[in-house]
């Protein structure tokens, strides 16, 4: 299971990440098993489209959780904060600005984001400047924001939300359509290729070690192929809303996830902020001695998580078409599970956005697959709990192997 040291270093030289590879392989196996168990229903365009939408909410929040866990923090209030910000968004549309014009729903998203940032700053302030452990602050938040969500409308469900807003949930008219989807897919492959070329050029210029050309080409072929295959599948799902039977294409939530993930991946690997967060998680004392603004970093991390919780809440409420105070229940656990399954180490200092997204996809795959197989919700919870333990166990095994 764990690649041996020589094997691993060989993979390393080729620029392959063994941990990530194992995760993708596990996902592929689960998909094959589910396709077989459901007589192919699992791999139908309709189901894969739904799976892509279901994954987005968990994946978007998991992108923020990667940063927090890398910095040795945690946020248990994600689900409650989703409920609170989602209720504020809905309230803005139904009780304040109305859901008729574009103004109302655009402003409502701004209100939700702002609330997420403020709540994040509040939690981050207690952690960073008052030294209360994140576990305690966000556990309190878990209670408080769920309560606050109830208070927004006194426990009532707020509906209807603006039609344009509901498209953000990926339902009716909530996708790009085939033309734009293919355009984006091809552009994505071109961007991947350009990035590979630019990286090789830059490394060659400074005389740094280059992975062999075939290894980079293989990686490009696999990632580009997966991207185009995904576009093909979602375009094969006929849009129930269109009479011509055109394909749906990429759902808008997927687009939101792409933007969030690309942004946070670049921030993690290419900016000072990301570098400092990773350094802080790797060795807090070293970060302090290097003069990094560690408190401000923590505050910003919790604000990021708050903002992303609001984004997840927007997609959730848009999908439901209403705001209720019960959304996002247990979301934090799915998000943390996705992050950890995606290879983010609970001891801090390592983790990746791509891993968290695949982790979210894996968790939602299990959830989705078990629904197709008619497994009761109580049993699904038990199973996903077991998967989480297994993932952390595997991570421990893997890391012990790496140290040897």
């Amino acid at each position, binding site marked *: 299971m764990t690649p041996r040291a020589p094997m691993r270093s060989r993979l390393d030289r080729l620029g392959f990440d063994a941990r990530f590879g194992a995760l993708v392989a596990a996902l592929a196996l689960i998909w094959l098993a589910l396709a077989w168990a459901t007589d192919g229903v699992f791999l139908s365009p309709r189901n894969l489209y739904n799976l892509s939408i279901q994954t987005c909410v968990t994946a978007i929040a998991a992108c923020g959780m990667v940063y927090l866990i890398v910095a040795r923090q945690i946020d248990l209030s994600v689900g409650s904060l989703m409920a609170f910000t989602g209720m504020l968004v809905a309230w803005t549309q139904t009780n304040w600005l109305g859901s008729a014009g574009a103004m109302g729903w655009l402003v409502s998203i701004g209100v939700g984001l702002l609330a997420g940032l403020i709540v994040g700053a509040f939690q981050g302030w207690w952690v960073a400047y008052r030294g209360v452990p994140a576990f305690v602050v966000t556990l309190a938040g878990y209670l408080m924001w769920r309560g606050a969500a109830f208070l927004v409308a006194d426990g009532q469900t707020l509906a209807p939300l603006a039609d344009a807003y509901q498209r953000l949930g990926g339902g009716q008219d909530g996708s790009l359509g085939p033309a734009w989807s293919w355009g984006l897919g091809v552009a994505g492959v071109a961007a991947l290729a350009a990035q590979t070329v630019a990286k090789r050029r*830059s490394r060659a210029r*400074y005389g*740094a070690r280059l992975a062999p050309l075939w290894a980079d080409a293989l990686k490009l072929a696999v990632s580009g192929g997966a991207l185009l295959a995904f576009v093909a599948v979602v375009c094969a799902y006929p849009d129930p809303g269109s009479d011509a039977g055109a394909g749906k294409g990429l759902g808008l939530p997927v687009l939101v996830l792409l933007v969030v993930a690309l942004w946070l991946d670049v921030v993690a690997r290419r*900016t000072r902020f990301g*570098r400092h967060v990773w*350094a802080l998680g790797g060795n807090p004392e070293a970060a302090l*001695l*290097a003069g990094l603004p560690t408190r401000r970093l923590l505050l910003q991390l919790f604000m990021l998580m708050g903002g992303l919780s609001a984004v997840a809440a927007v997609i959730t409420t848009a999908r439901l078409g209403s705001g209720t105070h019960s959304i996002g229940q247990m979301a934090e656990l799915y998000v943390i599970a996705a992050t950890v399954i995606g290879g983010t180490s609970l001891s801090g200092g*390592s983790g990746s956005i791509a891993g968290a997204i695949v982790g979210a996809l894996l968790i939602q795959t299990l959830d989705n697959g078990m629904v197709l197989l008619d497994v009761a919700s109580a049993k699904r919870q038990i199973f996903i709990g077991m998967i989480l333990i297994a993932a952390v166990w595997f991570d421990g095994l893997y890391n012990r192997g790496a140290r040897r």
Partner: protein
Amino acid sequence: MSDVRTPLVEVRGVSKRFGGLQAVDAVDCTLFEGEVVGLLGHNGAGKSTLIKLLSGVYPVDAGEIRVRGVAQRFASPRDARAAGIETIHQTLALAENLDAPSNLFLGRELRTRWGTLDTDRMEHEARQVIARLNPNFTDLRKPVSAMSGGQRQTVAIARALYFDARILIMDEPCAALGPAETRMVLDTIQRLKREGIGIFLISHDMPDVFEVCDRATVMKGGAVVDTVNIPEVTPEDLLGMIILGRKRGSAA
């Protein structure tokens, strides 16, 4: 020995108290260009606190730190670095999960014109400075957790040197090293000295002290026992000062 040059570092009456403990008590010491001054004393004598005051980790309670004659107030390690003081902490203060270039530039990253990290240029620069210190160390992209003790020490020293520090503080740089790596560090100290860099060296190893130090300031109980010229003393004199807190020449 009268010296009319302005010292690189002049510490005057510096004190630091933690609760009931007077960790550093009215300490005076100086450091000149091209000089290595040993800071000696038992564990708990106040050496580590003194260097944390000099490197901006703690603010001083009383007294003054002058760098090239200018009084300084360090509110953070950044300020000390800006004044040209680089510190190699005993723990090395490296992020274990990051590679050599990332650690070398931690907090002072090179950036492209778009404001993103210039990782390739940082690797290139790191390669240059590390090659001068330890030519056998070429695998810079591996994380610190996979490095040997000597390689870690190399990264920590390279970090201090890259930014053209004129003042260097080294806290037991050889404590965890084998003989060959200790040799590398001592040779590096000699070379830096010739380049005119002033070094405060904390060490417990008498042969090392006698090999590289010009003077030694001995501390006990937070206060300075005495400062001596190394050629004028014997290891026994120094041990007497360290253990008994006894000035040289005073009756036994």
